[in-house]
C-alpha cells in the first residue's frame, strides 16, 4: 500500500527472494518476526510473505495457480538509492556485514593475464542518440538456475530504477565465448540493422523489430526512447554479429545460458555517471560466482576521438569525517573507535586516524549513494540503532505566528457555521466544463490555469470559482432534507503574469442556498452578516454595497455585483435555470462568492 506521507514514497523497489535460499546464504534461520525486525533496523521493509502460487492465484484466480511453485518468497522493499541491495547476493552481503558475520568483500579489477583485454569502440554516430558505453567481463563464472534468475532479475530492477526505464542506461549481457572482439558500438539507420533478436527464430530489420515489440507488454515501453531517431544504436562484434540494439533488445546469438562461463557486460547510456554505477553494481554483485571471487576483468572503451577508458571503475573513495561531527549530528557520544566500527558494519570500512580526531572512511564502488558526509552520518545512526538514540527537545525558542489569511479564514469559518451554513470541502482541480460551459462562459474568457497531462477530464484545470464544487456537492446530496445551505472558504487559482510562476491563488468565500424558493434574501442576508463580521458597514462611501449586474451564471435581473473597500469583490444572485439544469439540480438556488483578501 502506498502511504500518503510527506516525502512522496519514492516508489521503493521490491526485491523478491526465496526464503530458504536467503536463510541458506545467511547461514541461519529466522522466524518471520525476527527477520521483519532485522529489516526494520536496517531500513528495509519485509513487505509480504508469499509464494508464486499465491501471487498467481491472487492475480489470475485460484485455478490458474495450479502447479505453480509454493516455495515461500519474501518481498522486501529496498530504499530507492540502495542499488547494492536489489538482489539476493547484495542483500545477504549487506546483512551479514551489518551483523558482523563477514567482512565486506574487496572488489578488484584485473587485467587479463595474456594481455588480451576486450575492447569496445564507440563511433561518432552514437553521439546523436546514446553517446556513452561502458563494459566489463565476468570471467569463469558459474551459474545455477537461482543465480541465473537473480542475474536477470537484478538487470531488470536496475533498468526500472536507476536506469529510468532504460532511458538513461541499458544493460546488455552476452556469452563472450560466442563472439569475438573488438566490439563496435555505433548507430545506423534502422533499415540497415538486421539480426535475430533474443528468443526469436528469424532475422528482422530494426524497423521490423520495433513493429514486432509494439504489442509486447514489457518491451513496448522502451520503443519511444529511440523510435524517432534517424539512427538506432547497435553493438557488433568483429565478425558483424549483433550483440544488442540498445535499449530495446539483445541479439539471440550471444544469449546467456546456465552453461555460460564468460560474460561480456555492456551498458549504453545517455548519462555516463549512471552507466558507471550500474556496471559497478552488476559486476560487484555477481563476481561472487567467478572463479576468482570478487574480481572483475577489465574492458577498454575507446571513444571516436581516441579517448580510452578502462572499466569497470570499481573506485574506492576515501572521506574523512570528524567523530565529533557524527556525534553532534546524531545526538550521541560514542568513542571514535566505536563510530568507526559502526560504519564498518554498513560496508563503509573505517578507521580512526591521527590522534583520534578523524575517521577515515572508505566508500566502496557499491555505495554510490554516499555522496556527502551526511550520508555517512546516517549510516552511523542506522548502525547505532535509531531507536537507541536519546530523544531530546531542541532549545530553539520562537514565537508562533499564524498566517494572517488563514487566521481570517479560521475565524470566518466558525461564524459561517454559526450562521447555519455547513462547510464543504471541494477539489481544487476540475474539468473545463465545470468552470466554463456549465456556468455559461467561454473557457478562453476565464483566467484558468490549464494542466498539460491530466489522466481524466476531472483534472483539466484549477478552479477559478468555488461555485461548481458547491453545486456538485448539492447534486451529490439531493436526498438530504431541504434547505441545503453550504459554504466553503478556500483558494481558487488564476493566471497572473506579475507572479514568478505566472499564476496565483486567491482566497474566496462562497455560499449557496438550495430550496424550493430561490432564497436570494437568505444569501443577501448572509452577505450582510459577513460584512458585519468584517466590520464593514453598508454604505456607499467607505462600506459595502451591491449593484445590479449581468452574469451568465445568474438569472437576468437576479444578480448583483458586490463592492467593498473601493473594489469589486464578487457577486451574488439566483442561478440561471440553465446552470441549475447543467449541474443536475431541480430546485431554485442562489449563491454568493467573494474574494476575502481585501479584508486582511
Amino acid at each position, binding site marked *: 500500500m502506498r502511504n500518503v506521507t510527506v516525502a512522496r514514497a519514492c516508489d521503493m523497489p521490491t526485491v523478491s527472494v526465496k526464503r530458504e535460499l536467503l536463510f541458506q546464504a545467511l547461514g541461519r534461520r529466522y522466524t518471520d518476526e525476527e527477520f521483519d525486525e532485522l529489516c526494520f533496523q536496517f531500513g528495509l521493509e519485509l513487505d509480504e510473505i508469499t509464494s508464486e502460487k499465491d501471487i498467481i492465484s491472487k492475480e489470475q484466480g485460484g485455478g490458474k495457480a495450479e502447479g505453480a511453485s509454493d516455495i515461500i518468497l519474501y518481498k522486501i522493499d529496498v530504499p530507492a538509492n540502495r542499488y547494492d541491495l536489489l538482489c539476493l547476493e547484495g542483500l545477504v552481503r549487506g546483512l551479514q556485514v551489518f551483523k558482523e558475520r563477514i567482512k565486506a568483500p574487496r572488489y578488484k579489477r584485473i587485467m587479463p593475464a595474456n594481455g588480451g583485454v576486450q575492447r569496445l569502440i564507440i563511433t561518432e554516430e552514437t553521439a546523436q542518440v546514446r553517446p556513452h558505453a561502458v563494459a566489463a567481463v565476468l570471467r569463469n563464472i558459474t551459474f545455477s538456475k537461482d543465480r541465473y534468475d537473480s542475474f536477470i532479475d537484478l538487470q531488470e530492477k536496475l533498468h526500472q530504477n536507476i536506469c529510468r526505464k532504460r532511458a538513461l542506461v541499458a544493460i546488455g549481457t552476452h556469452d563472450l565465448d560466442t563472439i569475438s572482439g573488438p566490439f563496435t558500438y555505433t548507430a545506423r539507420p534502422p533499415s540497415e540493422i538486421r539480426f535475430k533478436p533474443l528468443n526469436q527464430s528469424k532475422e528482422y530489420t530494426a524497423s521490423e523489430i520495433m513493429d514486432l515489440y509494439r504489442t509486447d507488454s514489457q518491451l513496448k515501453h522502451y520503443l519511444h526512447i529511440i523510435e524517432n531517431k534517424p539512427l538506432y544504436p547497435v553493438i557488433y562484434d568483429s565478425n558483424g554479429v549483433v550483440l544488442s540494439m540498445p535499449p530495446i533488445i539483445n541479439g539471440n546469438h550471444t544469449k546467456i545460458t546456465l552453461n555460460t562461463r564468460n560474460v561480456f557486460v555492456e551498458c549504453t547510456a545517455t548519462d555516463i555517471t549512471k552507466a558507471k554505477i550500474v556496471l559497478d553494481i552488476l559486476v560487484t554483485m555477481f563476481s561472487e560466482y567467478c572463479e576468482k571471487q570478487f574480481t572483475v576483468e577489465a574492458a577498454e572503451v575507446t571513444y571516436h576521438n581516441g579517448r580510452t577508458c578502462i572499466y569497470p571503475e570499481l573506485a574506492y573513495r576515501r572521506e574523512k569525517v570528524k567523530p565529533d561531527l557524527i556525534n553532534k549530528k546524531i545526538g550521541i557520544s560514542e568513542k571514535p573507535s566505536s563510530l568507526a566500527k559502526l560504519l564498518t558494519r554498513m560496508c563503509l570500512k573505517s578507521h580512526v586516524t591521527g590522534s583520534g580526531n578523524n575517521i577515515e572512511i572508505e566508500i566502496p564502488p557499491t555505495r554510490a549513494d554516499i555522496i556527502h558526509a551526511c550520508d555517512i552520518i546516517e549510516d552511523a545512526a542506522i548502525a547505532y540503532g535509531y531507536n537507541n538514540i536519546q530523544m531530546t527537545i531542541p532549545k530553539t525558542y520562537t514565537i508562533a505566528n499564524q498566517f494572517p489569511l488563514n487566521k481570517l479564514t479560521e475565524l470566518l469559518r466558525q461564524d459561517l457555521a454559526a450562521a447555519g451554513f455547513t462547510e464543504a470541502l471541494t477539489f481544487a482541480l476540475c474539468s473545463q466544463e465545470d468552470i466554463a460551459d456549465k456556468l455559461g462562459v467561454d473557457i478562453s474568457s476565464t483566467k484558468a490555469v490549464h494542466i498539460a497531462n491530466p489522466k481524466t477530464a476531472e483534472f483539466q484545470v484549477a478552479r477559478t470559482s468555488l461555485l461548481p464544487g458547491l453545486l456538485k456537492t448539492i447534486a451529490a446530496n439531493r436526498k438530504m432534507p431541504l434547505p441545503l445551505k453550504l*459554504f466553503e472558504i478556500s483558494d481558487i487559482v488564476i493566471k497572473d503574469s506579475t507572479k514568478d510562476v505566472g499564476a496565483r491563488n486567491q482566497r474566496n468565500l462562497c455560499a449557496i442556498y438550495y430550496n424550493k424558493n430561490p432564497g436570494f434574501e437568505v444569501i443577501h442576508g448572509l452577505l450582510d452578516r459577513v460584512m458585519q463580521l468584517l466590520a464593514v458597514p453598508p454604505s456607499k462611501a467607505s462600506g459595502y454595497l451591491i449593484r445590479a449586474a449581468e452574469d451568465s451564471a445568474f438569472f437576468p435581473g437576479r444578480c448583483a455585483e458586490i463592492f467593498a473597500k473601493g473594489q469589486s469583490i464578487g457577486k451574488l444572485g439566483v442561478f440561471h435555470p440553465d446552470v441549475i439544469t447543467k449541474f443536475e439540480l431541480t430546485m431554485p438556488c442562489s449563491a454568493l462568492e467573494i474574494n476575502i483578501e481585501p479584508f486582511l
Partner: protein
Amino acid sequence: MLGAHAVLLECSHLWAGEHQAEVSPVCSPQVIEAEQRSSKRWELTPEGKEIVQEGSHEARVFDSIPAEGLPQSELMKLPSGKVGFSKAMSNKWVRLDKNADGGPRVFRAVESVQDSVREKLQLVQQGEAESLEEKDRNELKKRKLLMEVIIKTYWIRKGSAFSTTVTKQETDLTPEMLASGSWRDLKFKAYNFEALGIMPESGHLHPLLKVRTQFRQIFLEMGFTEMPTNNFIESSFWNFDALFQPQQHPARDQHDTFFLQDPAEATDFPMDYLKRVKKIHSQGGYGSQGYKYDWKLEEARKNILRTHTTAVSARMLYRLAQQKFTPAKYFSIDRVFRNETLDATHLAEFHQIEGVVADYGLTLGDLMGTLREFFTKLGISQLRFKPAYNPYTEPSMEVFSYHRGLQKWVEVGNSGIFRPEMLLPMGLPEGVSVIAWGLSLERPTMIKYGINNIRELVGHKVNLQMVYDGPLCRLDS
C-alpha cells in the same frame, strides 16, 4: 370504577409483544399503579360454535342419510358433506357401496351414533375446557374448532397520587399560568424522557477541516509559525531542484506530477541561488559529490501543481537565509497534488501537514524528541523510527506507531534532516541544521472518524449527513 381495592381490567386480545409504552402514560404511577398479568383460556372458533348448535359435520352427514342410502355425489353437495363424510367413514358410521346402481351410494353402517365432538365443545363453551383430556383439546384445536386465547390483564391499585376527581392535565407551562400563578394548582402531563429532543438548526464544520484546526492548534502550542502556502502552482525549481531532487527523478515524471500547459513556465528566479543549485546538481560542492549530470534550466522552469508543501518550506528557508540567521520553526497544512491512480484511500489532491525547525546544532535526537512531543499531542505515545530514503533529507526516518486495533506498527509520518546540498546553496550558515517531518491530514482523519472511502470525506461526493453528525475533534482523546 377506581373505588375498588383492585380492579381487573380486561384488555381482551392484547397479544403479547405489543408495546408496553402504549399503556404506561394512562397508568401514571402517581395516580394508579398497574401490574401486568396474563392468563390463557380456551375458546370456540366460529366453526366450533356452529358445531355446538348444529352438531358435528360427521353427525350431520349420518343424520342426512335415509335408510335406502344416498348417492355419494348428492351427499357431497351437503354443506358438511366433504369433511363429515371422511370423518363418518373413519368412525365406521357409514359405508360406501361403489357398485350400486346409479353410481356409488352411501349407507348408514350403525343404528345410531354419539356425537362426542359436539359434547366436548359444549363442555368448552361452558368454561370446562380443563376437564377435557389434552389430546382431545389438541385434536379439536387441530380441526380449528378450538383456540387458545392469551389474556393480558392489569392489576390496578391506588397510587401515591390517587385522586377521584378528574383533572385535565396541562401539557406545559404558559406565560398566563406564570402571570396568574395558576401553575400551583395545575397537574402537568409527564414528559417522555425516552424520546429524543429536537436538534437545533445549525451549520456544521467539515470534519477534515476540524482536524486541520486541531493540527494548527498543536503547532501553535509548540511555537511554530504558519507558512504562506497559498500557491498551488509552483515551478519545478522550487518543488524539486531547490530540494536537491535530480531532474531525472521519477517523481518528476509525467505519470506522477501534474505539469501545466498554461502558464507552462516560470520566468523569475533568484539567479545567484539558481546558479548554485545548478552547480550542486551537476558538479557537487559544499563537500558533496553532486549528481554529475547535465542540469537544465528548461526542466527547472516547468510549472507544476506542487507535489508537496516542502516547496514552500524551501522558499521560506531561502528567505531565512537572506538575513542574519535567527532560529525558526515553521508549519503548514495545505493541499498538494499528485497525478496518481485513484483508489479508496488516494485522491489526486490531499492535504500535507509539515513541520520544520531550523537552528544551530539540531540533532537526530532532537528530531525524534520533537516528533514524540508532536505525536503525544495527537494521542500517540508509542513511537518507533525506521531508516528510510528521501531525496532531500539525510538522515531520514519513517515514524511508526503501534496501532492497537490492527495489532501492528503502522507508518504515521516521514521525517528527516534536510541535506546540506539543499541548505548551503540557499546561504544558510554551515552549522545550521533543519529538521522536518510530514504526514497527511486525510489519513488520521479517516482513522479518527472511521471513514473507509476517502470520497465520502473529501470532494463533492461528501456525505453531508456524516458532516451533520460529526462529533467534536479532540485528537488526544
